């Protein structure tokens, strides 16, 4: 087994730190957390860190942007900025300062881990293939990065929304997702009040991937709650 990826989390709120710490540890990463920019630079120098999650707003004279610039002087480690600012220009500045990606607060841990995987794949060229690259579920083979789904070896053509729903469900088989959660993932925040429209997407998706759409094997309805991906027996 290759050495575990070490991630440094820099945020001034200890509660956010501990939450990210818990989640990423559960996801199988080694996590170090610090609260200030100076500590972050120290940690980057000292430890073999593969990725830094860096809060934009940091106390103590050294903000996230400056920390990012300093890190770039000493290391080529991947950096994902956490920011409460949603202004386009702020993002551009952040990316110019050497950040690899950014996530706006409030962020979902699922989104953050997806970004972490993407950034790590990009920065660790030739490195180990990420386990999340191919999802094999029964007769379905889903490749999220390539945007392809095959059923019994045959390509299935999905719309982007259908694809996002499928990936979300298939990544965590057995976990129930509410309509609201799925519409947030598939349609974005703007459509959050149209959660019922997710039913239409699900019914189309079933026609495409289920052998018998009226008795779905993969995308199962949990009455009164939402949908889940059936665990293959």
């Amino acid at each position, binding site marked *: 087994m290759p050495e575990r990826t070490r991630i440094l989390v820099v945020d*001034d709120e200890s509660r956010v730190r501990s939450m990210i710490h818990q989640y990423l540890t*559960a996801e199988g990463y080694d996590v170090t957390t610090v609260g200030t920019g100076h500590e972050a630079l120290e940690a980057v120098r000292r430890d073999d860190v593969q990725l830094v999650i860096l809060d934009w707003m940091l106390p103590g004279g050294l903000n996230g942007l400056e920390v990012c610039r300093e890190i770039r002087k000493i290391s080529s480690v991947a950096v994902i900025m956490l920011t*409460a600012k949603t202004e386009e220009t702020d993002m551009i500045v952040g990316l110019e300062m050497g950040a690899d990606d950014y996530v706006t607060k409030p962020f979902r*841990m699922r989104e953050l881990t997806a970004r972490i995987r993407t950034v790590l794949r990009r920065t660790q060229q030739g490195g180990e293939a990420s386990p999340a690259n191919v999802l094999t579920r029964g007769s379905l083979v889903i490749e999220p990065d390539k945007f392809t789904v095959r059923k019994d070896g045959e390509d299935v053509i999905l719309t982007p929304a259908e694809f996002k729903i499928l990936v979300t469900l298939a990544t965590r088989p057995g*976990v129930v997702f509410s309509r609201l959660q799925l519409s947030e993932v598939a349609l974005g925040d703007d459509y959050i009040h149209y959660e019922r429209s997710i039913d239409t997407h699900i019914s189309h998706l079933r026609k495409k991937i289920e052998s018998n759409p009226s008795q779905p094997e993969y995308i199962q309805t949990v009455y009164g709650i939402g949908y889940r991906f059936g665990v293959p027996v």
Partner: protein
Amino acid sequence: MSVRLKIWIAMAGLILWMSGCYLVISHIFTESQFRHFTTEARIQSATRWATVIERYYEEHGSFTGVEPAVKNAVIQSPYGTGTSLEEITLISPNGSQIAKIALSPTPPDPDDTTGVPVPIMVNGKKIASAIVYDRVIEGLELLQETTLQSVANATLVGLLLTAVISLIAGGWLSRLITKPLRNIMGGIRQIARGDLNTQVRVRSRDEFSRLADALNDMSMKLAQAVQTRRRLVADVAHELRTPITIIQGQLDLIQDGLQPAEPSSLLPIQDEVLRLRTLIDELHQLALAESHQLKLHMTRMELVEWLSQLVEKFKPEALLRGIDIGFTTEVESAYVSADSHRLTQVFANLISNALRYTPEQGAIHLTLRENPEPQKTVAIDVTDTGTGIPKEQVDHIFDRFYRTEEARSRESGGLGLGLAIAKELAELHGGKISVASEPGRGSTFTITLPLK
């Protein structure tokens, strides 16, 4: 209809009406004077010949032979043969013609001329009337007609000229008068479009400039209010982000099966929900205080007793933190009118802040003293030997959501609303709150309250 048009119409109308009246009156006056003058002249001229006839009648007792006698008299008169007298007709009182004295070869055209009738009086009795036809007198009538005509023409031209000038002047004046109004209207439109930094400039020193000043003041206050609201929304959004991120992350952990739904993994969610509740409560309170809708239940309070009791309540916690807390008073008693619950909130906030930032072995001291300025107020100092507030942050310490660097890195749980609320509450009591601080040595918060 625009004000400018109204002013213009009013002004032009007034000028037109006045000049019209003036011209018509002067016309009527001139005409009557002139008519009077010509009538007089004609009668005078006619009367001269009537006198000749009267004298002839007096001498001869009848009109027989009056014709040659009058002709003779005319020829012998200073006018001689060049007289303008054309004809004199004598008519008896019963209407019959007595004599017709023709003095020129061509008789007067009755269409052209009307003779001037003059009574022939003898011994105070009218015995006939003479109708005198005279070219000069007729000419006088013609003169009267043409003169009156030209007076009328002049009046008309004058009226037209006045009209044109008054319309132009009125237009210019109304434009001048309404110019500040147009400026102000433009400003209001700009404000309505959302440009709240609009400042209207009116140079005159009159009602308009006062209106413009009021408008400028309003737009400035509006801009400030919008700015405050924007900042508040941004602040609140910012404060909401962290709890929501944590709640979501924690829930994701549970939903994704990375953590069981046990009390220990639910606790952080509970904590964050509590923080959100506190945030909402404090925001509500601050909003009420700022809009002066917070109801104070004022009672007469004695501060010496009240403060010593308050300090007692904080003693256990101070003891726990190894901090000395005390209270001294320089006055025997101080009565104020206050809402004791709200006042407790103010002091509890100050004391708990002091406790938070004062290290072990430190001290917190409350002092009640007379306040020299303004008069009839009392001051309470809350002094600590804590970390103090850096100079550049002192000005912002009462801003909502403002937390010093120290407060942020300590994560001592404050939302940055406590001092903002304390300030509003102190002001609602008619008092003031201020701070003096020396970084590294401590801070003193001073509250002044009016004495009752």
